[in-house]
């Protein structure tokens, strides 16, 4: 952990993510206004000392909506990647450990999933379900496990031929012990790196879906659907477009810095 955070990129990313998480978690305590309260007397006000980021077309306080939007982004990112990583670890372990026809089958499944444009797949599934934050998390999770699967499989294949694993196998260790005691713990670094980077892309996908009106639905706020309003009023209310975009940019940048920094810090091969 200390080694990881001594990397300036990882540290920078970590600080960004920590601040955003803190804001998201404490949102109910610190929001100056109810994020869903409509106030017809203060429609489209520019940023001021009362409304730090102005108000939207229904007079709602943009700063409060942004804070609640942070909760959505973080939750979707983390839960979706959690689902994807879990599926990836299970399928990748099976594939890399048992090999044979199971491996062939799982790898072909990965190929199939990878050849359908992901954003189309997500949109198609959403089209048949009602868009809600839960459905979005599940759909993003179910369509982004392929990378982790390949990764875990590759790690397993290379680790299986290492002396300590063969020694343990020769001593009569069972499958479960080999997998959970030797193979998985030694594959952890790349899994963590790819999960952190995965959160970044899940945040982007969620905001894209919400922007298109197929994600988080009003009145609940998300950075993506604040931007949808921003598009509507772009000619006379720049603040509606500027702040959510910056928030997404900074969040995704934070996860990418953390992920790349961790990769550099934890992977001895990339240190040169």
């Amino acid at each position: 952990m200390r080694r990881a955070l001594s990397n300036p990129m990882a540290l920078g990313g970590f600080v960004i993510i920590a601040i955003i998480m803190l804001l998201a978690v404490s949102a109910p305590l610190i929001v100056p206004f109810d994020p869903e309260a409509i106030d017809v007397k203060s429609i489209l006000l520019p940023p001021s000392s009362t409304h730090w980021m102005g108000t939207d077309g229904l007079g709602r306080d943009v700063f409060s909506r942004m804070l609640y939007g942070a909760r959505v982004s973080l939750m979707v990112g983390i839960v979706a990647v959690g689902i994807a990583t879990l599926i990836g670890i299970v399928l990748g372990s099976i594939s890399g450990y048992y090999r044979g026809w199971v491996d062939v089958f799982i790898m072909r499944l990965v190929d199939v999933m990878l050849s359908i444009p992901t954003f189309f797949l997500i949109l198609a599934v959403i089209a048949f379900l009602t868009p809600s934050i839960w459905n979005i998390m599940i759909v993003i999770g179910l369509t982004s496990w392929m990378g982790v699967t390949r990764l875990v499989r590759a790690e397993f294949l290379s680790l299986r031929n290492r002396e300590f694993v063969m020694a343990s196998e020769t001593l009569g260790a069972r499958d479960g012990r080999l997998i959970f005691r030797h193979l998985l713990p030694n594959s952890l670094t790349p899994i963590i790196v790819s999960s952190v980077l995965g959160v970044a892309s899940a945040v982007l996908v969620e905001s894209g879906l919400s922007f298109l009106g197929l994600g988080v639905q009003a009145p609940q706020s998300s950075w993506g659907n604040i931007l949808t309003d921003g598009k509507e009023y772009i000619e006379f209310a720049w603040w509606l477009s500027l702040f959510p975009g910056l928030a997404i940019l900074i969040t995704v940048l934070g996860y990418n810095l953390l992920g790349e920094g961790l990769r550099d810090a934890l992977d001895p091969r990339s240190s040169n």
Partner: protein
Amino acid sequence: MIRYLLNRIFWMVPLLIGISLISFFIMHLAPGDITASEASFDPRASEESRQKLRELYNLDKPVIVQYGLWLKRMATLDFGTSFASHQRPVFWQTTDEQGNVRKGMIQQALPITLLINVLSLVLIIAVALPLGVISALTRNRAPDRAITLFVFIGFAIPGFWLALMLMYWTGVVNNWLPISGLHSIGYENMGAIAQIFDTLKHLVLPVFISGLSGLAGISLFVRNGMLDVLHQDYITTARAKGLSENTVVYGHALRNALLPLITIFGLSIPGLIGGSVIAESIFAIPGMGKLFYDAVLMRDFPVIMGILTIGAALTLIGNLLADLAYAWADPRVRRGVMQ
């Protein structure tokens, strides 16, 4: 070579079957009966006409039979007609008894999306190659740091937000570029050259938006590839032979660093096609992405299924072409393939 090609095509068959299974499965996620959504476009649709539809799409038969029949239609490239757009053919044009030709929806949308993607690839290559090389040659110095910062921002910036900002800046504030659609008003009356210029002007922003994240990725990739290659023995040998630094960098290192790019481009096809949804719906470009988005909003099932299948088939063809190009470009692989 022919054997390699046949082998690769043979392996596409199980993939296509898998893709068709997934597409078919998605269609059956829909709660209730898909005829309900079509009937909802037309309040006069009676129970009788819905029954007719159910027969047309074989919804009264068991699922496995439905899948078989659907697969049979896919194999003959028959994607049916749209629910929402007055029964237009989904894929390719049809001619009715009176000899009227009706253009297919994908037939009209696909060339537009392909044009945008090809232009994005040209942009990516033209910008990312020099950036990556400069970055590698000035490693850890100012230019490299600046390019790396650009790469990270390019990865993190939401395309739809940048699109909005650029629309505002170039279209609303300064009126430099058109911000919506593919042609200006009066396009039909322009000369051929004016028409091309008009279309290109409309494509500047969409191409930039759809190329940006790829641009960042490829710059980083070229940089790391160059750094790897520059440490190889044959580079030291080339330098020891007394070749000029330019010959070493561009003649030896860059050529080898570029090889894996072919595969990367192949792999980036689904991302480019999928990414077209956002760029095309913001700029109102009538390509595959916009078509798909509209179909999703209207739950136009035949169009959704058609685009999913065609999109996946394009990806497979793209990967095949990338592998063939790789085999052609890399003598080590080429010899392996020939044997």
